[in-house]
């Protein structure tokens, strides 16, 4: 089943969120509007808004209220992508030129700051202090996670714990709070929004691990960037960590980090990762998180949203791009 089919009952509301997203970046400065729309229209899974809306179904669902959280979280994600492209010095995202490539770093910084401010403006429509405390704490954690990622780049002395802590901050927290804030925005009970946070956290961890696997197993076309580009940028992900248990492979990675011409080396490295069992072991870790996510769903009341969350969790483990 395709991802969108799993929550087809939300189609009208998702279309509304899409419209709100486009409206939210309209300004009297054409360049900011153009740059933001450029990113917005490049697509994306909109997974955070979907989680917000689904979680909202566990309370007194009102799209006119929950939309503020859904739009705010997607805008936060977008703002971080714009700045990430400056950080990674990336020229392409989803196969299209990045804002920093089409204009320059300065425009990317200003556009990212604008989008982030716009997200907080949207979020401020939710008059619930706890919701803001949760989100703001997450924002700080996200930045610290990114700083940690820079710190850990090209560092071969990492372990599973450092990797998991990094992806928790990098990806899982924002998905977890998407679920939690959706529920808070519709006044779901505390126990429900806490369970939804746990669900989102586990799915988020699995989502990032799957992303890290796909960096080696997908094609450049599907990824919109070269295969193995995370490793080329010095990021040690789970498949690499597992494969590095072989000292000879570890030496190859070390060589890659210092080599001038990396193309031949990366191909060899990808081939080894695929044949070493590292992919299967990483999938196994991802599956464990997904199982935990599914177990959490047992504690939530039955409804259409719960069924959709179950299917999404299943999908995350099987996705191919």
């Amino acid at each position, binding site marked *: 089943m395709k991802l969108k089919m799993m929550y087809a009952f939300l189609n009208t509301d998702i279309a509304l969120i899409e419209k709100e997203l486009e409206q939210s970046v309209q*300004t*009297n*400065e054409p*360049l*900011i509007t153009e740059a933001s729309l450029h990113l917005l229209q490049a697509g994306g899974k909109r997974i955070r808004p979907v989680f917000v809306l689904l979680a909202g179904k566990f309370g007194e669902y009102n799209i006119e209220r929950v939309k503020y959280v859904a739009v705010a979280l997607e805008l936060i994600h977008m703002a*971080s992508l714009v*700045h990430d492209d*400056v*950080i990674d*010095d990336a020229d392409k995202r989803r196969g299209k030129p990045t804002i920093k490539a089409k204009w*320059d*770093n*300065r*425009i990317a*910084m*200003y*556009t990212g*700051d*604008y989008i*982030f*401010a*716009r997200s*907080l*403006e949207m*979020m*401020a429509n939710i*008059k619930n*202090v706890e919701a*803001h*405390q949760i*989100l*703001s*704490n997450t*924002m*700080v954690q*996200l*930045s*610290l996670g*990114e*700083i*940690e990622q*820079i*710190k850990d780049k090209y560092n071969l002395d990492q372990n599973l714990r450092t990797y998991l802590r990094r992806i928790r901050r990098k990806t899982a927290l924002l998905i977890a709070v998407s679920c939690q804030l959706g529920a808070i925005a519709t006044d779901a009970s505390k126990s429900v929004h806490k369970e939804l946070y746990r669900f989102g956290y586990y799915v988020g961890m699995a989502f990032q691990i799957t992303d890290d696997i796909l960096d080696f197993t997908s094609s450049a076309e599907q990824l919109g960037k070269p295969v193995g580009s995370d490793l080329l940028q010095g990021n040690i992900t789970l498949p690499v960590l597992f494969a590095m248990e072989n000292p000879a492979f570890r030496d190859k990675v070390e060589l890659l980090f210092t080599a*001038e011409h990396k193309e031949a080396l990366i191909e060899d490295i990808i081939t080894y990762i695929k044949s070493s069992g590292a992919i299967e072991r990483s999938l196994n870790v991802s599956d464990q998180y997904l199982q935990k996510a599914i177990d959490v769903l047992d504690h939530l009341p039955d409804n259409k949203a719960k069924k959709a969350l179950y299917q999404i969790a299943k999908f995350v483990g099987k996705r191919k791009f």
Partner: protein
Amino acid sequence: MIVQNIYDTVANMKEQLQVELNHPYVKQFIHHPIIDENKLLCICSFLNGISIEEREMPQYTLPIMLVQIALDTHDLVSIQPVGNNESILKERQLTVLAGDYYSGLYYYYFSKSGQLELIKEVASAIKDINVSKIKLYQSHTTDVDDMMLNFRTVETALVQCLCNYFKQEEWKELLQQVLFISSLLNELRRHEEGKPSFLIEALQNKGNVHDIVMSQVKESTIVIERYLQSQLVLNDQLTDYLYKLLNKHKHCKNVVGEG
């Protein structure tokens, strides 16, 4: 209640800010952010002037200053290609992230104290500032008044939104002029020292830069002089600063006259 003088308040706020900015990893790779002490003095004087309790000062001062520092930090992100130079790339990466981190902290502080309305006001000011920055950066307009309007927004929107929040029109007008003049004179000084200033660079084909800037400064000094004679109670440190600013302006004028 212990009543501190404004000197102690400013020093105390600066110290607290430095603690917040002190991320051990970031500071290894980027310059320690500069705290705009004029803005800090203006904010503390304003809050003090409207009788905000000393213990409540940080909940307004810290987030506003953190936003300022976040935006200033992002201004430092370089646009030059880095090639294979990892250390320059790392410095750039951490500059982006340090700014994002300070932005997150501002939101964290406002939500911690439950000031949801201020979150909205400040977010709106950040939007305006970035729109104005892009207009200035792209030199979208050739109109001097427009350029000055954008520059004024960049330099004063945050303090203005704090004044709006407390509905203090007089303070708003005064601080807007003060920050506008001090920033303009600062840009002029930077330009004269051979440092980049995209405002001054954009003004260069509009006539004599010094004359353009000084005519803007003159208009603002009239407003400041009026406030120095008014009933608005200003503390000694702010009053001293205003007189220094007016003297600096006179000095600049004399330099032009002599030239």
